């Protein structure tokens, strides 16, 4: 029988955290910005079908960085949680806070109990009636949860991107301004001057979806043509 070496719990947790951090930093960044028109979610993602951003419920969206299979299973679990809750209680009773706390618990359980932690970082965004009632939650691989104000930057060279976004962020931005700011942030860690529309994935949570589109589902994915049209708009 082989002898099991003693590893202190501190060391074990540190190793796991380092492992997860490395995996997350390898990917590309995602930016979530709360603004006047709603919440804009922008990811650097060349694939048109493997999404990093998804709809969870009427007012709630999901964005993730890291390993696709891991965050995709979390996204599907989130959709199931929200739909069961909305079906058994009422649609109003599905909140980002409830969903984020379920995510925090599952990430925490995986971090301590499983062979390896999830190499993912998540953002759960809920659009409210006004910018002050928007909610942005950041969830990290160990199950920590943070309530953020204004914007979230995750993955890749998050520090550099975050600096660029923080410099330009204002509460009164519209969607055009918010997407421009996000794209400017995403190129902050590169030599390239700008990202083409085909290299990014953009979605919005529309604050006025009931009045403008007649639906309570605020989530709207923008295709490449929509992004080009949005950026062509004058300020």
């Amino acid at each position: 029988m082989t002898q099991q070496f003693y590893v202190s719990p501190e060391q074990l947790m540190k190793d796991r955290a380092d492992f997860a951090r490395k995996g997350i930093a390898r990917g590309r960044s995602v930016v979530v910005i709360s603004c006047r028109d709603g919440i804009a979610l922008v990811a650097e993602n060349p694939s048109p079908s493997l999404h990093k951003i998804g709809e969870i419920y009427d007012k709630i969206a999901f964005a993730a960085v890291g390993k696709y299979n891991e965050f995709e299973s979390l996204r599907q679990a989130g959709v199931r949680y929200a739909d069961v809750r909305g079906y058994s209680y009422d649609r109003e009773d599905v909140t980002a806070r409830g969903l984020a706390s379920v995510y925090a618990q599952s990430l925490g359980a995986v971090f301590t109990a499983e062979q390896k932690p999830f190499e993912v970082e998540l953002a759960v965004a809920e659009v409210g009636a006004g910018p002050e009632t928007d909610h942005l939650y950041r969830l990290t691989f160990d199950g920590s949860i943070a309530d953020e104000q204004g914007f979230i930057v995750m993955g890749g060279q998050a520090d550099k991107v975050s600096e660029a976004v923080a410099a330009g962020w204002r509460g009164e931005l519209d969607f055009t301004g918010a997407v421009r700011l996000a794209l400017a942030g995403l190129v902050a860690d590169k030599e390239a001057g700008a990202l083409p529309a085909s290299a990014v994935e953009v979605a919005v949570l529309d604050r006025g979806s009931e009045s403008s589109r007649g639906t309570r589902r605020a989530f709207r994915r923008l295709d490449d043509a929509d992004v080009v049209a949005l950026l062509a708009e004058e300020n």
Partner: protein
Amino acid sequence: MQETSASQVAANATSSFTEHLQRSRPELLPYNALHNGMPNGMTAGSAAVPVQVPHATTIVAMTYAGGVLMAGDRRATMGNVIASRHIEKVFPADHYSVLGIAGTAGIALDITRLFQVELEHYEKIEGTQLSLDGKANRLGAMIRGNLPMAMQGLAVIPLFAGFDRPTGVGRLFSYDITGGRYEEQEHHTVGSGSMFARGALKKLWRPNLSEDEAVRVAVEALYDAADDDSATGGPDPVRQLWPVVYAVSRSGAVRIPERQLAAVAGTIIESRAVAQREA
């Protein structure tokens, strides 16, 4: 070991909300809950005395030039009593389809809600909409699930209509209590007043109606159903209650505004009064 866990993941992957509920929360399904909770003495044989619960009545649907249109009256009955004058029985199922319900109102409303979540859930999980035939089949499976309750006298009969985007036409589907799905041509009706409404539609409907004409035909067919079927409610100018009408076209499902329905119903009542005919 690897293989079993991989096949387990594949087996557990479902895009269907109903399947998910069946596995993890079966008590939330509209049909399972009551069926399991039935008193022991109550079997199919005792259905001779029908349970007194609200029943939803007449739904009419028809194709028109731009798609398909569905209308339902506003009455629910419980035996000889009017249970509700305000009930709505036609609902948007998703952006491109609508369904109307006849039969036991309580179960039908829950099946409608389940069906709406089912379609939205698939769309969110898969990132794409179900085909119209796929939607119609899912609804059939839900009605089949309700078969034990239907045998006890609590049947639900839906009518499903949607715009088929690949072919660019509106299509209609009717169902029986076993979940059998039948595609209907031109127009169809369900519910207690359906015979009379269908008679009216045979005379009023013609190919390539415009949307406005189709709204008028639908309201008039319901008027005729209400004339001869006591369980169907006609337009009610006293309470300002009009049928619920949805039109589904390439641009999606739209509810016809009350103002337009009031005008259409007013014209029909007026023309019948002017004609001074008994039948």
